[in-house]
């Protein structure tokens, strides 16, 4: 069983970092690279296993069966990994690995690096935990591990006011959002007496009370904050630019996915399955009306993708622009999830969900690349103000090339990976409701305007600031080029990836036959 090593290895790396760092300055950096590389290998193995067998892995902590002695219900913490979780784990480990390599060059001039690498491994651990857990309180624990690590990392460069201010704001409001999620968990536990997600799904379907609805509202509200949807996106626009760029790449590429939209999808489809409740409603049994939550998600998604992308147009700070663009892209993902909820069981719904999952992976890669490019520019030139950065193309050709690929991919230009996922989202939303597709396209137009502006900055006349600029060192260039290569390769095989990976993932998340629940019921026997 390789699953526990997904948690053990980064945890071991993080705990041993203070001891390892006593041995020497260079060793801790290589140690972080080794640990995150091993995590990547484990997650690749798990993804391959789940993808090959197309079965959900259910792992019980502390025993061989989740069922308690003498009782007929699960009492232990379970980890339940379906294809969605495994795919996200692979993405997280991959981007995390590249971010660690990038940090070797990027963080060279900073102090306190053993804390930095400890925190980055803990951040990775928290996200990996979120995507593999099948226990809702365990989910909360990992969410807090991830959040606290990211609060600390946002404020890591504590000599600038930006980092401190953004970190404190993020911490206060993020803790409030977390406590809403905790309140939702407490309500569910008080009402149904269980914390295992799939058993909770059965219990809620048996007796859907007002408490369950309120808990769902708290979850969605708190997680919309964590994913940076629009009325609550301000922390993101502060925190992501203020963090060191390698951290921004992880925050924007992964944290808002794992702790935000992944959790929304898992709670909506895993605990409050729309199909189950539609089925109950067909028999006039009491049920939660999941269309309402679908429309709520779609409403916030439309708001997010319009405002996020439009705000990106007017930014003069490169990293802030990318952060707002992240907000906009989260809108697309939420739109896919919302339509997947509304059109549950139809082709449009499945397609929308596949598009959302595809876009999660694509956006993680693209936005990581863009933030790494921004970091390279900051590292070499020392400013991120777009008005002072014109004419970088001649001095930093590889960086500019990476940026062009990333920008083209995020807008959704056809031969790159962003096209396929956005196209699936447009197509499925057009199948469900053309107005939503129109809104999505308008959002893309704004995004195009924003990135064209940065592109002109890169290609424009040379300014004084960049006379001395040159390409960054290899440890920073190589992760960028790896991401470029992955983006291009994924862009060349869009429909193959969509059919082979994303659609099965969407089916498994949608669990038309209740696979997520059945994986647990096998242990109970019958029921």
């Amino acid at each position: 069983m390789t699953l526990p090593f997904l948690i053990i290895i980064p945890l071991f790396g993080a705990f041993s970092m203070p001891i390892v760092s006593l041995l020497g300055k260079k060793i801790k950096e290589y140690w972080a690279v080794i640990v995150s590389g091993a995590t990547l290998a484990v997650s690749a193995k798990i993804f391959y296993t789940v993808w090959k067998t197309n079965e959900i892995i259910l792992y019980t902590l502390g025993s061989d069966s989740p069922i308690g002695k003498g009782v007929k219900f699960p009492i232990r913490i379970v980890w339940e990994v379906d294809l969605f979780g495994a795919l996200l784990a692979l993405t997280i480990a991959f981007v995390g690995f590249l971010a660690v390599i990038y940090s070797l060059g990027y963080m060279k001039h900073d102090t306190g690096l053993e804390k930095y690498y400890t925190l980055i491994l803990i951040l990775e651990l928290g996200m990996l935990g979120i995507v593999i857990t099948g226990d809702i309180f365990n989910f909360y624990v990992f969410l807090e591990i991830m959040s606290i690590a990211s609060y600390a990392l946002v404020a890591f460069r504590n000599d600038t006011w930006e980092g401190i201010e953004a970190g404190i704001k993020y911490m206060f409001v993020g803790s409030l959002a977390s406590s809403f999620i905790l309140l939702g968990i407490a309500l569910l536990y008080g009402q149904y007496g269980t914390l295992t997600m799939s058993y909770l799904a059965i219990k809620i379907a048996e007796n859907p009370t007002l408490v369950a609805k309120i808990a769902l509202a708290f979850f969605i509200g708190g997680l919309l904050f964590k994913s940076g949807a629009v009325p609550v996106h301000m922390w993101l626009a502060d925190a992501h630019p203020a963090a060191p760029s390698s951290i921004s790449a992880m925050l924007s590429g992964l944290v808002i996915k794992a702790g935000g939209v992944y959790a929304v999808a898992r709670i909506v489809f895993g605990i409050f399955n729309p199909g189950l409740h539609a089925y109950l409603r067909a028999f006039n049994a009491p049920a939660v009306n999941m269309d309402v939550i679908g429309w709520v998600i779609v409403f916030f998604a439309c708001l997010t993708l319009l405002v996020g992308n439009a705000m990106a147009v007017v930014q003069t700070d490169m990293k802030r622009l990318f952060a707002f663009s992240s907000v906009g892209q989260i809108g697309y993902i939420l739109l896919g999830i919302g339509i997947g909820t509304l059109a549950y069981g139809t082709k449009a719904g499945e397609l929308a969900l596949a598009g959302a999952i595809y876009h999660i992976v694509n956006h993680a890669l693209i936005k990581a690349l863009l933030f790494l490019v921004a970091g390279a520019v900051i590292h070499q030139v020392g400013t991120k103000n777009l008005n002072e950065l014109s004419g970088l193309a001649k001095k930093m050709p590889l960086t500019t090339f990476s940026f062009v690929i990333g920008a083209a991919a995020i807008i959704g230009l056809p031969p790159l990976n962003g096209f396929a996922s956005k196209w699936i989202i447009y197509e499925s939303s057009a199948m469900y409701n053309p107005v939503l597709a129109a809104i999505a396209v308008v959002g893309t137009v704004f995004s195009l305007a924003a990135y064209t502006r940065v592109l002109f900055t890169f290609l424009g006349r040379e300014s004084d600031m960049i006379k001395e600029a040159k390409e960054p060192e290899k440890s920073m260039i190589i992760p960028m080029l790896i991401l470029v290569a992955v983006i291009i390769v994924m862009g060349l095989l869009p429909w193959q990836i969509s059919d082979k990976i994303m659609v099965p993932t969407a089916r498994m998340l949608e669990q038309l036959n209740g696979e997520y629940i059945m994986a647990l019921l096998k242990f109970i026997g019958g029921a």
Partner: protein
Amino acid sequence: MKSDMGLIVKTMARATIPLIGIFGAYVVSHGHLTPGGGFQGGATIAGAGVLFIIAFGVGEAKKRINKSLYSALEGLGGLVFLGVAMLGLSVAFFYNTLWHNGPIFNGKPGTLLSAGYLPIMNLAVGLKVYTGLMSAVFAIALFRRWRK
């Protein structure tokens, strides 16, 4: 500026610090039997450390507290926790193999040497919490902007 407190406080601190420490050690080591555990006991012991910093001042604490040692011990606490959790990995992560078949800590429930990995984990967590809290408090104490 003098950072330590007066003679009365120092004398009282000399008397109470060992007692607080002993009580914290009791809470840690009886974590599997009585209310409390590694975290609570570790925080109690850290309370003794905080009292030390307040009563005797940061200058004295700077001489006695080795930051890198504390940081290494904190990592050690975490590693012990993780290692004990991995002992039963052949069955499952966090499987309490010491309790089920193990050479130590498998006595009658309710005695001190029972409950398998729990006492070891409590000790590890206690160490981690004590060193972690002490490092945090010490860092905050050192961080004084207003002093020129």
